């Protein structure tokens, strides 16, 4: 069996006395699209922030290519080829597009002086690649002037700057227009075709069903279900299952089934 790109084992995270995650295990294999779904507050975003190194887990282990890592951090995560497009896009809106794309990995010489020309030409290439064709914007445009979809484009351009092994998209279609959503799906298929992996987090189960090959349902800090697409008949079946997962909560407050 090929090694997992990344594997999280028994991850727990508590904020004070509240458990956001109570022992979640998750892995991603090379070249697969994993759909991570769950209700609001299920712990999806906490999980991917742990994946990105932004939040430190209370307990649990992280393996990269089968090797246990210590001192997991955002820099380590990016160095391991994991790029995350956060739900809030994680952009510095007063800065130029090019500065956002190279945030945290500026192209610089040995003394730290930036190679601005190369950054701009790279940014132009990336913007073309993701279909940023507007003449109104240049890499020097300020991100604050862009629309939601365009900002998402900048965040995605940043994620594909280096040949990442795994791209994590947290609710990438929220607040996007239909054409922009279509662009994001097109992008996911492109990445998939190039043999890289994707973790796709979404509310819209139809969206996730269309695009993912394996589904992980998170419910109240635990993995409630993990199934390949072949084991599920249709999006409708997945939705019915999600409703079923939500039901025990209602039952617990009422009568014991």
């Amino acid at each position, binding site marked *: 069996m090929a090694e997992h790109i990344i594997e999280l084992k028994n991850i727990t995270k508590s904020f004070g006395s509240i458990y956001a995650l109570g022992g979640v295990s998750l892995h991603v294999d090379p070249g697969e699209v994993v759909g991570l779904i769950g209700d609001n507050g299920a712990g999806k975003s906490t999980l991917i922030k742990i994946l990105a190194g932004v939040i430190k887990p209370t307990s649990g282990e992280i393996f990269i290519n089968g090797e246990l890592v210590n001192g997991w951090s*955002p820099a380590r995560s990016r*160095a391991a080829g994991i790029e995350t497009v*956060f739900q809030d896009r*994680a952009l*510095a809106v007063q800065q130029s597009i090019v500065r956002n794309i*190279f945030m*945290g990995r500026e192209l610089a010489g040995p003394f730290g002086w930036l190679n601005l020309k190369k950054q701009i030409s790279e940014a132009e290439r990336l913007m073309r690649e993701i279909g940023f064709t507007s*003449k109104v914007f*240049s890499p020097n445009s300020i991100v604050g002037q862009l629309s939601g979809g365009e900002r998402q484009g900048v965040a995605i351009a*940043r994620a594909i700057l280096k040949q990442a092994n795994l791209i994590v998209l947290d609710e990438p279609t929220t607040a996007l227009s239909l054409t922009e959503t279509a662009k994001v799906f097109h992008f996911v298929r492109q990445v998939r075709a190039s043999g890289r992996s994707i973790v796709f987090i979404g509310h819209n189960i139809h969206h996730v069903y269309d695009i993912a090959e394996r589904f992980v349902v998170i419910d109240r800090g635990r993995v409630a279900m993990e199934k390949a697409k072949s084991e599920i008949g249709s999006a409708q079946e997945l939705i019915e299952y999600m409703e079923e997962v939500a039901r025990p909560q209602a039952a617990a407050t009422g009568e014991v089934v």
Partner: protein
Amino acid sequence: MADVAKVAAAETSAPHPAQRPVRKFLFANRAALGSLAVFVVMLLIFFIANPRVFSSWGLYAAVLTTLPVALFMTSPLVFVVTSGEIDLSFPAVMGFSSLVFAFVVQAGFDPFLAIAAALIFGALLGFGVGALVVYGGLSSLVATLGMNFMLRGVILILTNSKSIAVPQLSDSLAFQITSTQVWGIPVQILWAVAFVLFCALLYNRHRFGAQVHVVGDNPDSANEMGINVNWTRVKVFAFMGVGAALAGVFSTMINFTWWPTSGDGYLLPVIASVFVGGTPPWGGIGTVLGGAIGALTVSFIQTGVVGAGLSGFYVQFFYGLIIILSLLGHRFNQVRYR
């Protein structure tokens, strides 16, 4: 119809107006250019008020001797403000570093060694202040205010509030190359201009400057992208310390005396310079060159008001007027993105 098509074609083939070089330059430097306009208008008013005084070089030479001290602190303070913090402790750091400088010179060591000692000491003090603010999780406004009092207190305790005369500086090589005049131009200003240009490059074309911008703009995003936010902030404070130490050395060189109050008078003018220069107080953006022009404006007010024939009582009023007018100007010259 054909005309419309032609216009449309011309528009698509030519770069967008915002991309034309002149427009781009104006847009990218509009804050600095705005402060330059304020300075020019102010100078013009002074000149009209008293053409005789304002056409003599002596007045400008006097300003150019003291302005460098402010410039060495204004530029690093732009970094501090851009990173989303403020530093009110630089006057005491300036006083303390120049005390080290004066001590080492008085002890008979070479002034160059004394300069090195002052710079290292300033960097360490700045580092300490930064570490306290950042790792202590304190408000930089309050914590650096406290540090300013405390460091000044230590200076007074150590020296019994006595000044230190270092006349031996006058025939040292260090003095010759930092603080004499060449063709009537004070050499200090050349060093200060070089420092400002270095800071401007560091700010706009160096990884450090880029990360300072991002950290001040959105610290959460900077962290998520693997930038060490805390360490970047500490480095900014250490850099401020180096600037304050340079200012201290140059101010001691002016009249070969270290005063226990050294640096105190710079607190408000230097802070005002940063904002008059067009760096907004909310962090994320700023301008080093604008800050330098702001310092020029602020340091000219006193000389200008007296030179224009008004009594010294008008100085404070004009300080306030210029600050408020500049802020209003920048308010309309700059959009805030969120």
